[in-house]
């Protein structure tokens, strides 16, 4: 009796184990937590064969005014990028969140457009736009506003422009996600209760959208801390940032231990930002959690008073304006402003299209039309072709691997255990938060000892670290909206678990799975930081190849590649859109 009962109990207990989460947890522990921990630990290890512990690196950090200055610059850059992203992004996000479906889809497309152009290409586009003989200077001179060209490039504003352009879309998308959750009845209710438009916005809508502002700002801030390519290309030595110093220590001075100490400083900065955020808003608002489960504190009361004042101010302004009521749905100021911001976001991607048809070997404006030579150069070059093939290979494998690991994890999180969920989710999302440069250096250190530098496997594993969070988030989102009764119905109709999964669940989730796959693919396809470190003797991926060729000499081949990629990704998106529309039509 005990045997059978024991077996049944064991089976019951085994069923309670969250198996689907294990691959993801194990993967991230081995591929990220361990290497990063190892790298950070280097900061307290003494150099040389004797080994032992030391605080020398921190001593040096504390003593060197240079590092504090660089930290200051880094914080200043990240802070300004965050502030400007929120200021310019908020109206766009508001317009998107409060528009009808069709307009919303179109606006979202334009916000996301920068993502579909290689990050590197966009940065070069800014060089073309802001250079001494760049587009902007030419215009200003043409209009007679300035006599001689302004120095725009290699300045702090240029760095701001580049970083803002790279990070604002992320901020907008995050804010939209929160704003879409704000019940339209709340603003309607406020108006029937006697609140004019100004008060309705500042006292109701704005406070409710604050978690989105904070989450978007946090993401931008943390990402900005890890930027080094933009400041390196668009800035002057005055704009040197922490990651650049880490790179210098690793690549030029080969001082891993001090690099470790700098990395600890960087991680500490991220953690402080994160804790501050948690104190003010609670981490749950990052994942679209709820506001208002506890009464407001003193700080919130003060904030409320400020917003009330703003509301009254705007209402007074509203009374001065003509009393004629604007037609609902027409918001010319908001719309005009948003178009300007969207134009700013789209400009670099679109600029590359005409430039790619230039006849001269210069990435320059205006292009000398018309020639196919850079397309021929791309198609005729074995190096470029090899890089293209390799990029597809790596991105494809990355997408498959991160789906295999991420999809079960998403199932485990949504359907499975309750305790410890937050901790697991934090681990799965941590690759978004740990600065990429630190992951890259840490992987390089690990691979060097395992002899994995310059292997496809090394690259795919590294990219999967970055792709898994996107897969998990995307699939979790569709799973939450999935009616589990459909599964129950399938079981009751005689399908076992495996067949239910295969015939019912997965087909219904296809749109989400396709999106997750695409996200993972694009993440890998456009990835440069990790590629820079671990490609080694292996031929380069496309971004790496662009980087290498740009360091030697920037020529319009880059523009040709970028235009081809833009076309390709647009085609893929249209296809994905078509599939999801068809699915929706099929499933009602």
């Amino acid at each position, binding site marked *: 009796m005990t045997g059978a009962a024991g077996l049944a109990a064991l089976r019951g207990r085994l069923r309670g184990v969250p198996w689907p989460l294990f691959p993801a947890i194990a993967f991230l522990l081995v591929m990220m937590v361990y290497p990063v921990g190892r790298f950070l630990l280097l900061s307290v290890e003494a150099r040389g064969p004797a080994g032992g512990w030391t605080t020398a690196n921190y001593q040096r950090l504390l003593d060197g005014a240079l590092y504090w200055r660089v930290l200051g610059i880094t914080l200043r850059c990240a802070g300004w990028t965050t502030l400007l992203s929120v200021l310019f992004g908020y109206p766009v996000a508001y317009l998107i969140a409060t528009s009808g479906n069709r307009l919303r889809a179109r606006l979202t497309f334009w916000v996301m457009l920068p993502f579909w152009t290689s990050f590197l290409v966009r940065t070069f586009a800014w060089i073309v736009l802001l250079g001494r003989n760049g587009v902007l200077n030419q215009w200003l001179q043409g209009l007679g506003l300035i006599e001689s060209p302004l120095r725009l490039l290699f300045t702090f504003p240029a760095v701001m422009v580049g970083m803002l352009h790279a990070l604002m879309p992320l901020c907008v998308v995050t804010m939209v996600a929160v704003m879409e959750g704000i*019940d339209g*009845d*709340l603003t*309607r*209710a*406020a*108006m*029937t*209760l*006697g*609140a*004019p*438009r100004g*008060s309705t916005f500042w*006292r*109701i809508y704005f*406070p*409710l959208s604050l978690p989105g502002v904070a989450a978007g700002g946090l993401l931008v801030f943390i990402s900005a801390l890890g930027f080094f390519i933009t400041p390196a290309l668009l800035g002057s030595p005055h704009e040197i940032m922490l990651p650049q110093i880490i790179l210098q220590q690793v690549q030029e001075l080969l001082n891993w231990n001090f690099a470790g100490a700098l990395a600890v400083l960087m991680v500490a900065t991220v953690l402080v930002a994160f804790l501050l955020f948690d104190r003010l808003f609670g981490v749950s608002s990052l994942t679209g959690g*709820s*506001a*208002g*489960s*506890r*009464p*407001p504190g003193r700080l919130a009361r003060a904030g409320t008073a400020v917003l*009330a004042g703003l509301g009254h101010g705007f209402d007074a302004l509203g009374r001065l304006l003509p009393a004629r*009521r604007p*037609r*609902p749905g027409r918001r010319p100021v908001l719309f005009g402003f948003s178009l300007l911001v969207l134009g700013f976001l789209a400009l670099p991607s679109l600029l590359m299209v005409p430039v790619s048809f230039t006849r001269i070997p210069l990435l320059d404006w205006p292009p000398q039309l018309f020639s196919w030579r850079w397309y021929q150069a791309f198609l005729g070059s074995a190096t470029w072709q090899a890089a293209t093939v390799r990029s597809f290979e790596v991105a494809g494998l990355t997408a498959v691997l991160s789906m295999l690991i991420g999809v079960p994890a998403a199932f485990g999180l949504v359907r499975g255990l309750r305790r410890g969920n937050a901790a697991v989710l934090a681990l799965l999302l941590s690759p978004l938060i740990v600065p990429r440069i630190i992951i890259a250096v840490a992987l390089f250190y690990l691979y060097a000892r395992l002899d994995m530098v310059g292997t496809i496997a090394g690259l795919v594993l590294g990219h999967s670290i970055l792709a898994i969070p996107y897969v998990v988030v995307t699939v979790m989102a569709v799973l939450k909206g999935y009616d589990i009764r459909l599964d129950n119905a399938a079981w009751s109709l005689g399908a076992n678990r495996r067949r239910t999964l295969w015939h019912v669940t997965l087909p219904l989730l296809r749109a989400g799975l396709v999106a997750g796959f695409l996200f993972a693919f694009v993440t890998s396809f456009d990835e440069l930081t990790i590629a820079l470190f671990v490609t080694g003797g292996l031929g380069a991926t496309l971004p790496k190849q662009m980087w290498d060729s740009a360091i030697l000499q920037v020529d319009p081949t880059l523009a040709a590649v970028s235009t081809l990629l833009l076309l390709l990704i647009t085609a893929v998106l249209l296809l994905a859109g078509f599939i999801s529309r068809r699915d929706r039509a099929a499933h009602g």
Partner: protein
Amino acid sequence: MTAKLQLERVWKRYGTFTALQETSLDLREGEFLTLLGPSGSGKTTILMMVAGLVLPDGGRIAIDGRDATRDPPFRRDIGMVFQSYALFPHMTVADNIAFPLRMRRQREAHVQAEVKRVLELVQLPHVADRMPRQLSGGQQQRIALARCIVYRPGIILMDEPLGALDKKLRDQLQIEIKRLHRQLGTTMLYVTDAQVVTLTMSDRVCLMNHGCIEQIGTPADLYFRPRSVFAADFLGDSNLLEGNILQRSTSETLVDCPGLGGRVLAASGDAAGAGPCRILVRPESMVLAAAAAPVEAGCNAVAAVVRDVIFTGNVTRTTVESAGGTLLSVAGLTHEAGLSLPPGAAVQVRWRPAQTVLLPAPR
């Protein structure tokens, strides 16, 4: 005397779809009017127009005789209770209720006193410092009501405010809303698709269908004197049969009703002329009698066979099949003899001519 609220030929179109045809409607001061109708019939559209949250494409809306068609919501002196309650999640219950008073820039001491007063009125004085999320559904509903009455708006609009609640709570809150209405004397426009609510609370009911007013009148009007098959069917249970008017006099109309296997008498109303019509008899108007019992002169009697007896407590519902082959539903107070009718027993179904409602045949 001018009406409190007047809609004059307002209409609304979304794209090519007409959500509301030209509609006119008046509310007296202090009246409780219910908009009733199936989903998509345009009830919310009317409410939103009155609130100023949707602009009509044409027509005029007047409040207290003053044109308010294009006034923004915050200048209309209306209050609205949303189906989702729309309590502000980032404010305490007290702040939620204080919101409309603060928008009117009233003194803080007065605001606090008023908040306290209405919280007592809805019998929830102890939840003032909680957040809306910490309240039960029924409590949230009452707070939404409190927030709406605290500033004494001239008209209160409610859009299915009880829809999300369970039946028991719904019944209780209905009584409370009615009590508040009596206490405050406010004009109320109430939207629902549940018939029972309508009958217990309203002074008048406006029945909507496909963006049109189908019929408007007291609950008794709608129940006993429906003017269309749709109205008869929507409110309460009914036996609806096809018929053909044979003969009309000032007092009585004779209708041929093949479904009943014979002719029936109806009191002459103003409904139908001659030719095809429909007749309506409410189940509780019909009485079962033994097959052979003598029939009073002038009373309708139809031979039928018992098919099913359903005992639902104080009321028993019996389904019988008439000689014409139609199933009829008969409802009566439960008595023991009625319960023991075996299926297949021959009976007689009787009702008075005055209880036959003549309706025009739907085209």
